[in-house]
């Protein structure tokens, strides 16, 4: 790990002031940043320890939603009684990720901002346009079993590794940020971005901006939902493909269905256009399959990850069935219902 200056601001305003500068990093739980620093992928000159900032509460919002403080640990969020009761999809997705120890340290803001686990991004001996702009992409034509099938560019095929964010995409969350130019709110769909020709930008945060919280609107997806995560091991592994579903079924037909995919793109993958195909349908393998084809339109394999396209299609159909039948995937008993 490189040497750096360390500061521990006492207020958000001080943190923002201290956060100006190119090689300055905010440190929260540290589960990703410290690892990246050990690998020399990130070499900040200044580390701003934000752990003492008052962003560590879960609060009620007017209108029935919840604000998840940026510094609340993932485990505390998943096991918060209000989250468990009102947003069980979010609890399930968080508990599908990482390990208990990591979830105790990792924060909600840090989960949003974690970097890809692309092997080439992590290996400083190889080219990577995300780590070193212009150096090339080792994954294209290389070892790419875990890489993107949707929304990739000719410069980067990395995926966003979060489970939590896939649920947030379905729940239409809003990311609250503050920065040198003041506060702003970013819809989750606009927070992460596709790599395009600027693959070093994971998200739409501006320089020096700090995530302060995540707002969940009032929703009623407490029965007909699921988070289905498909991976090489049953626990403690990143998703090859994951599927978050939230659905409303009225009189035997689908009144609303929202679906987001993890592990397949540079951001949680969702299409509100494709979701219109499910509205008014009776839950059926045919309707689910038609939707899956629409959501996966344009999917391209890179060789080793070609299997993800049929895996995602089957996973979408299975997850929609789980949600429609109100039998969400257990994150403990790993049998897929």
């Amino acid at each position: 790990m490189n040497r750096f200056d360390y500061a521990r601001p006492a207020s958000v305003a001080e943190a923002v002031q201290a956060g100006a500068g190119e090689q300055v990093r905010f440190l929260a739980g540290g589960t990703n940043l410290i690892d990246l620093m050990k690998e020399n992928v990130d070499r900040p000159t200044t580390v701003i320890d934000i752990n003492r900032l008052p962003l560590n509460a879960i609060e009620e919002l007017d209108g029935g939603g919840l604000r998840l403080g940026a510094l609340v640990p993932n485990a505390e969020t998943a096991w918060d009684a209000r989250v468990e009761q009102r947003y069980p999809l979010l609890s399930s997705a968080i508990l599908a990720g990482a390990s208990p120890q990591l979830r105790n340290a990792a924060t909600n803001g840090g989960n949003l901002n974690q970097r890809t686990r692309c092997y080439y991004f992590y290996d400083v001996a190889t080219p990577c346009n995300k780590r070193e702009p212009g150096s090339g992409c080792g994954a294209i034509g290389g070892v790419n079993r875990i890489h993107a099938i949707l929304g990739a560019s000719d410069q980067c095929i990395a995926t966003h590794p979060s489970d939590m964010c896939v649920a947030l995409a379905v729940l239409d969350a809003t990311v609250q940020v503050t920065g040198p130019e003041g506060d702003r709110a970013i819809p989750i769909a606009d927070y992460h971005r596709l790599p395009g020709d600027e693959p070093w930008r994971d998200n739409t945060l501006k320089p020096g901006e700090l995530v302060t919280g995540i707002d969940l609107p009032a929703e009623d997806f407490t029965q007909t939902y699921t988070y289905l995560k498909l991976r090489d091991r049953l626990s403690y592994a990143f998703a090859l493909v994951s599927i978050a579903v939230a659905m409303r079924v009225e009189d035997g037909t689908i009144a609303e269905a929202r679906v987001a995919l993890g592990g397949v793109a540079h951001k949680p993958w969702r299409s509100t256009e494709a979701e219109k195909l499910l509205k008014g349908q009776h839950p059926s393998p045919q309707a689910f399959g038609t939707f899956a084809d629409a959501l996966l339109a344009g999917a391209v394999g890179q060789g080793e990850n070609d299997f993800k396209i049929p895996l995602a299609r089957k996973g979408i159909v299975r997850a929609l069935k789980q949600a429609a039948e109100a039998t969400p995937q257990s994150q403990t008993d790993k049998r897929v219902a």
Partner: protein
Amino acid sequence: MPTAVNTATYAAVPIGTVPTTLTINGETRTRAIEPWTTLLDLLREGEDLIGTKKGCDHGQCGACTVLIDERRINSCLKLAVTLDGADITTIEGLGQPGDLHPLQSAFCNHDAFQCGYCTPGQICSAQGLINEGKAKTRDEVRELMSGNLCRCGAYSNIVDAVLDVIGEQA
């Protein structure tokens, strides 16, 4: 202004270090710590508490698990300076020869290890699991102990040992 650590308020503190107070296994100590020091390295090299093990050093194996304010954490991914004021329990603080913690006894009784390298992390993790109170069944213990790898493959006996202690406390 943020705390300018390099110009620390303690004149005697070496340049670049941060005065940090930690309570480790019940004993409170203040140290001048370089900010890039992980809790794991501090415990092993600064405090001579070598029960906590360095496996992968990347948060992937769980061998370095300790309890910070009663929560299980990978000590390899925590900078010690960020923990000022925290209460830390390592395997040495859970039990000692002649005065074993119930989990240590259960691991012995169930033959829940071979080489023993992962064991301190397994036991600290199991204590964290018990503190959380979320695991009752075998499936739940398996899932919530998944952050601790055992390359000898003693998993089934580890789960038996943890279930034994949960049962005693129920």
